């Protein structure tokens, strides 16, 4: 019985410890995908299939390409007034989350052929 109580106490301590750890880590983890995509929706649509032809369809695009585009907007290697403002405060982890989200959405994009 005593052994079980000690185990239980240990387990509770471990659980609260991990809960505490995740609370502490929360700011490190940054924004959720929902928070991150909120800014993208107005131009690219809720799932990245942009309704406006001036803005690219990003749904289903290769993840690494989306990441590269966002990184280049952030560094200034790719110059676009609208996108520069959007990505300025994104972390590497935010960029990865956005690319992962949009690359998995249903999409009309495909690889074209020459014949």
């Amino acid at each position, binding site marked *: 019985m005593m052994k079980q109580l000690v185990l239980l106490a240990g387990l509770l301590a471990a659980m609260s410890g991990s809960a505490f750890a995740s609370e502490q880590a929360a700011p490190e983890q940054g924004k959720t995908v929902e928070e991150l995509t909120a800014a993208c929706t107005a131009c690219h649509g809720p799932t990245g299939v942009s309704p406006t032809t001036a803005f690219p369809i990003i749904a289903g695009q*290769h993840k690494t390409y989306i990441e590269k585009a966002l990184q280049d907007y952030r560094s200034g290697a*790719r110059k676009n007034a609208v996108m520069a403002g959007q990505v300025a405060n994104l972390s590497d982890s935010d960029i990865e989350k956005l690319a992962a989200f949009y690359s998995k959405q249903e999409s009309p994009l495909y690889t074209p052929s020459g014949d």
Partner: protein
Amino acid sequence: MKSISRWTQKVFAAAMFCGILQGSALAAGDAEAGKVKASTCIGCHGIENYSNVYPSYRVPMLGGQHPEYVVQALKAYKSGERAHPTMKAQAAQMSEQDMADIAAYLTSAPQAQ
């Protein structure tokens, strides 16, 4: 004199109208003409999951994309707003008509096998 000037006005108006029509035809792009012009593009964009080697990332899928956006991208490479060396070299050779034709083809081409 008055009737001649009216006639001149009509001719001028007709010429303007043709100009507008031609302008919109230019912007629309000709996919058939684009097919020939896009042969170089297909070398990378027509290979499923093809990767840019350095830095390593996959080249974008252009089938099904908005042609207007593809034209914008080509113009940005030509102007230097986008810096990819290969794409800059490709776009530097293109007229606006070439860009429109290529965009029309790549965004509507048959799917690669």
